[in-house]
């Protein structure tokens, strides 16, 4: 595969060396003179100097024959533009963009850059997963599908404790996926009875969280 990487920071440089080892053809674009000089010692002709949001820089790097464009600069606007231009102007099939500030995620989604990766959002999700006081934990965002998968624990005071899934008045935009009890997970079906201590996974449309919480979680005293 021919892979074009915009941004030669730690992420971009490590990606480039790994992809090269895997046998892919790679071009790394870096816009900072000093950083470019350091990268050039390591990567030689693989790295090129230039602003990846300039169309002629992309063209000289052969964007038109790229199978994949990865935008991992430290600037979210630049990452959006690199992917949008690669996709819309040069017909690149796949783009991956780094989101530096999670608040910019909606902008990436709006433009439709393709896949996005955000270290901050990922770490935040992990922290939430580790913190028991966060009752409803987001496990996965399916941006393209506009769905998310969440996990939560059934507590003793929960209105759902002791009831079967069928009898719950779940929001229409949600479904329970599985129930984990004593370390064993089972698919949630209508007969599944929820008990205190159960870990439940659910899939829902963004926005239905509050309604789901009302049905499944204890009201704080």
């Amino acid at each position, binding site marked *: 595969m021919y892979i074009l990487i915009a941004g030669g920071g730690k992420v971009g440089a490590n990606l480039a060396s790994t992809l090269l080892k895997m046998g892919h053809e790679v071009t790394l674009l870096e816009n900072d003179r000093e950083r470019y000089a350091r990268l050039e010692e390591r990567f030689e002709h693989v790295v090129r100097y230039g602003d990846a*949001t*300039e*169309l*002629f820089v992309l063209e000289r790097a052969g964007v038109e024959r790229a199978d994949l464009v990865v935008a991992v600069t430290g*600037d*979210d*606007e*630049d990452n*959006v*533009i690199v992917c949008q*231009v690669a996709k*819309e*102007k040069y017909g690149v099939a796949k783009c991956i963009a780094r989101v530096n500030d999670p*608040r*910019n995620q*909606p*902008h990436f989604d*709006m*433009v439709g850059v393709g896949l996005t990766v955000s270290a901050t959002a990922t770490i935040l999700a992990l922290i939430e997963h580790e913190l028991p006081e966060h009752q409803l934990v987001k496990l996965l965002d399916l941006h393209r599908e506009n769905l998310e998968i969440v996990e939560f624990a059934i507590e003793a005071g929960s209105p759902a404790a002791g009831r079967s899934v069928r009898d719950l008045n779940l929001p229409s935009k949600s479904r329970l996926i599985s129930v984990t009890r004593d370390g064993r997970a089972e698919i949630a079906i209508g007969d599944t009875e929820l008990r205190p201590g159960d870990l439940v996974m659910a899939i829902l449309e963004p926005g239905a969280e509050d309604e789901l919480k009302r049905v499944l979680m204890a009201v704080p005293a």
Partner: protein
Amino acid sequence: MKVLIVGCGRVGSALALRMTDDGNDVTVIDEDPEALARLPEDWPGRFLQGHGLDTDVLIDAGIESADAAIIATDGDNTNIVIAQVAQKRFNVPCVVTRVLDPARAKFYKTLGLQTICATSAVIDTAFQAICDNPGRAA
């Protein structure tokens, strides 16, 4: 008309002044609070400090009911992203975007953005000034 201007540099501030002189309701956003100094002290519009990509700032500035938005920060890519947010997400009826790079200005025009490229204007004007000069050497 309710007008939102993002970026209060030479272009943004001058436009803001002209827009209020013309009787419009103008709000200006700039990251730098000092940018307000470009406008007269009795300027009747509203100034908000913040980043134009911050949706909360845009909403605070009234983008949801704006009739027009002018995006004129000093970053082409920032302008292009903000303009798309204004146009696609907030459905602002008229969005004008300053883009200094002629290539990006041209491409984003094909994607439906109203881009204005000062660089192209300078190139055309300079070319005409020299080549249309009747006194030039043949």
